[in-house]
């Protein structure tokens, strides 16, 4: 099976409700994410999404591309800019090397951006596809 050149793009609106849900899941109630008055006094000016919420959109892109049994094996990334509340988060990626249909894993370079094209997150991820038996 070939490894596609690009990941299917996934998106999520960083609405206040989405940020609140993610805060409840992680139990990270940092006011930088949830308190508009607190955030207004920071360089960001308004609440920002948790960095790993943006990362979660990348996992959605991987699942959209390879199906629910695909898994990241390893990943490395830099958080480059915040995603402000209300922004549309988009994640996509490009195969880092030549296709090898026999390879068990493949590395993709990825970016997560807002709708203005600002890179919030960039890095690379090694993907394992197939069932649970194909895991790392």
């Amino acid at each position: 099976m070939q490894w596609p050149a690009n990941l299917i793009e996934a998106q999520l609106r960083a609405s206040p409700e989405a940020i609140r849900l993610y805060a409840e899941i992680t139990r990270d109630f940092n006011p930088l994410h949830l308190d508009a008055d607190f955030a207004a006094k920071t360089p960001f000016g308004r609440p920002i999404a948790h960095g790993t919420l943006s990362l979660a959109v990348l996992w959605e892109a991987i699942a959209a591309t390879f199906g629910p049994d695909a898994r990241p094996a390893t990943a490395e990334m830099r958080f480059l800019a915040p995603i402000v509340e209300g922004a549309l988060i988009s994640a996509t990626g490009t195969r880092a090397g030549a296709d090898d249909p026999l390879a068990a894993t493949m590395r993709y370079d990825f970016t997560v951006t807002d709708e203005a094209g600002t890179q919030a997150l960039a890095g690379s991820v090694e993907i394992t596809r197939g069932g649970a038996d194909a895991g790392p």
Partner: protein
Amino acid sequence: MSGEGRESTPLRFADFTPGAHLGEARVVLDPERFARWRALFPTAAQAQEAPPGLLMALFMNGFAEAFAPHPDGNIHAGQTLAFTGRSLRAGEGARVSVTCREKEIKRGRNRVRFEARMCNDAGDEIMSGEMLVIWAV
């Protein structure tokens, strides 16, 4: 610096010693968390195991609770991850242990690199990674 018995004064950059174990915390994939995840990402509606993003969320929860309190305004600047075992199912728990790997002041910012491991209740590692955090105070 255990997650149990939090103190009221936030940890400061000066409190960290490279190589020091900072603590550990137990996290549980309770049904409520799974339900919230499915509300956020409906693609997980049929998932029986935590998708990578939900496992990551639990990892971050354990990281935050393993040593506390963290000051408001910390910035998560970088991350490495390794998914090394089977993910958790609803009702299963794991422990996250955290070590301070290194710290430095760079361009006037307090940078601390942490190493964290998450092991399931059987003691098998399921995830590990390093977090680079710009520590606020």
